[in-house]
């Protein structure tokens, strides 16, 4: 331990010795950030942009009016992709208004770990339009591996959580987590892919090969 302690002092001393520069604490005085993306005219523009950019990255995306429509939308999607109707539903996908059991054909399991062939349904923290990215935070209601272990990931995105740019996301995050940051935050843009087996890149490297986004207008 003493050795690593001395390494710490050694490195910090080397830095200070080379570069004496004034420092500002980045949490107490955030530096002004140039606003690079123009703010959206209306939320609808951001939502449409979010969905269209996600589609460009090989995700599929649809929009439904209310929470009650979600189970039917999921069933439609699973049938169109000829997938098993068995679902693993994360706690944060049990949004009020969604009655999963209302759709008789769906087999809703509460398995803790997703297997390679499974379909997982999760909620999310935000959607970022500029990148077509879904943002999830780890919690007991949404363990991070749910995003990666299954073959198909269905994400429910309430329209109200879609922001236009990163600049709009960070203040929300700081306001929601003033005490402690979530353990893991995942930005997900479409399915997993690799470019290591030639061009074009191939889907389904280690994570899901299908990502389906359902934007819910009111929920």
């Amino acid at each position, binding site marked *: 331990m003493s050795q690593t302690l001395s390494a710490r002092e050694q490195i910090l001393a080397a830095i200070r010795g080379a*570069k004496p520069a004034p420092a500002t604490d980045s949490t107490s005085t955030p530096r002004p950030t140039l606003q690079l993306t123009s703010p959206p005219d209306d939320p609808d523009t951001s939502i449409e942009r979010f969905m269209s950019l996600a589609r460009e990255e090989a995700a599929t995306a649809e929009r439904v009016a209310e929470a009650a429509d979600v189970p039917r939308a999921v069933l439609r999607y699973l049938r169109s992709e000829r997938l098993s109707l068995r679902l693993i539903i994360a706690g944060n996908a049990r949004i009020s208004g969604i009655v999963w059991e209302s759709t008789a054909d769906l087999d809703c399991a509460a398995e803790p770990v997703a297997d390679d062939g499974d379909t997982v349904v999760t909620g999310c923290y935000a959607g970022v339009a500029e990148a077509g990215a879904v943002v999830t935070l780890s919690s007991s209601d949404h*363990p991070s591996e749910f995003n990666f272990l299954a073959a198909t990931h269905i994400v429910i995105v309430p329209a109200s959580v879609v922001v236009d*740019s990163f600049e709009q996301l960070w203040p929300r995050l700081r306001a929601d987590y003033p005490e402690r*940051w979530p353990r893991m935050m995942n930005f997900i843009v479409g399915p997993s892919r690799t470019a290591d087996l030639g061009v074009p890149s191939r889907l389904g490297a*280690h994570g899901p090969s299908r990502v389906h986004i359902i934007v819910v207008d009111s929920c």
Partner: protein
Amino acid sequence: MQTTSPKFKALSRAALADRTLQVSLDGLRRIMPEIRTAALNEMSDFEATCDQAAEIRNTAIASLDHYLRQFERQVQASGGQVHWAATGEEACQIVGRICSAAGAKKIIKSKSMVTEEIELNAWLENRGARDGQFEVTETDLGEYIIQLRGEKPSHILAPSLHVTLEEVAETFHAHHQIERQQPLSDPADMLVEARRVLRQKFLAAEVGITGANFLVAETGGVVIVTNEGNADLTACLPDTHIVVTGIEKVVPTLDDVGVLLRVLARSAIGERLSNYTTFVQGPRRAGDSSGPGNYHVVLLDNGRSNLLGTEFQDMLRCIRCSACLNHCPVYTAIGGHAYGSVYSGPMGAVLTPALSGLSSATHLPNASTFCGRCESVCPVRIPLPKMLRHWREQEFKRKMAPAGQRVGLRFWRILNRRPFVYRWVMRLVAIILRGFSRAGKNGRRWIRRLPLLGAAWTQQRDMAAPAPKSFQTKWRRQGAAK
């Protein structure tokens, strides 16, 4: 860092003659500039974003100790541990101790250039295995392929760029111990097989090791970017997660990360954002059903702090996007292995002498035509040609350059300081060169063959003959006419 950089010339010659390598490099040369341009044209303010990205990196580097200590406090507050390593050997020892303490046998890794730099895998498998064998498995597909083949990365982002699909199939056939008549031929099947084999490794591992793209001082977060999702599984599934990264990776705030992410994937792979961008803030929380119970961050110096306050400080801004490799006429001709260092291309030619000593890498700063494309595509505005020139100056001063080159440079200096003599010598040289030229394409005259020293040039390529009148002559005449 072990290098074979002294063999640069021989390795380059072999690379130029390697047909299969040339096919891969040709693909890179044709595709990457095109997709990068398409991705950044989508943004109206890409160049302004690059200026901002460079400024963010400068801010972090100017107060590196402050931001590192802030980062350290935040990691500790989240229940993680921070370790400092002055050298690669120290970093390997720290990782080895953590793995031993965890009682680990099976270790999974996601691609990390820093762990390539310190040769962590070899250390763990050979020297770290005193009381039990550590089995280390790389999980980035490209890195996994070269690990099976016992090779070094030939590109900082696409480590197996030099390996053909047929070779991948043969490699899997030899290592996967799956009963079948012949190697797979469809890449889709290769992917399914690799996914299945590696999924078992993910589920069985006790320790996961990742690198980091950025460290966030504000949150204590470690940002890891992948397209495959392998870093995420590495950080989620094993009970111990170790991050090994360089001290220069820290940035002040989340806003800064947002700006850097905008330029990173666009410069690297022509995408808005990579498929997975993950922020890790410490170990499993009370109430979590999963996630690592132990979380460690190893901060490596290994020569980086020596660059502070020197003419090479700007190199610390590098975010390892690889745009300079993809646009370099030298890299795209010879590939990464010729450089003999895990860092190749223009960024490698600047960084390798800094990390492993100029004497073992004298050829690398000379492997540039100074065309300037690397600097023009760098998203954090690193003046790469200027820094290569600094290395060349040091080679000259420290008498490392070959005698012929040194004499030539001295002669050049004498000429340059005497404009009158320079003009007359140049006039004479132009006349001689034109004497060797023949009429050729585009109505210009070309030199196909030169004797003596000039042969070194004309053996490989033609040379355009000098114009009958020099620019200076024309300029003076034009000025007189006015």
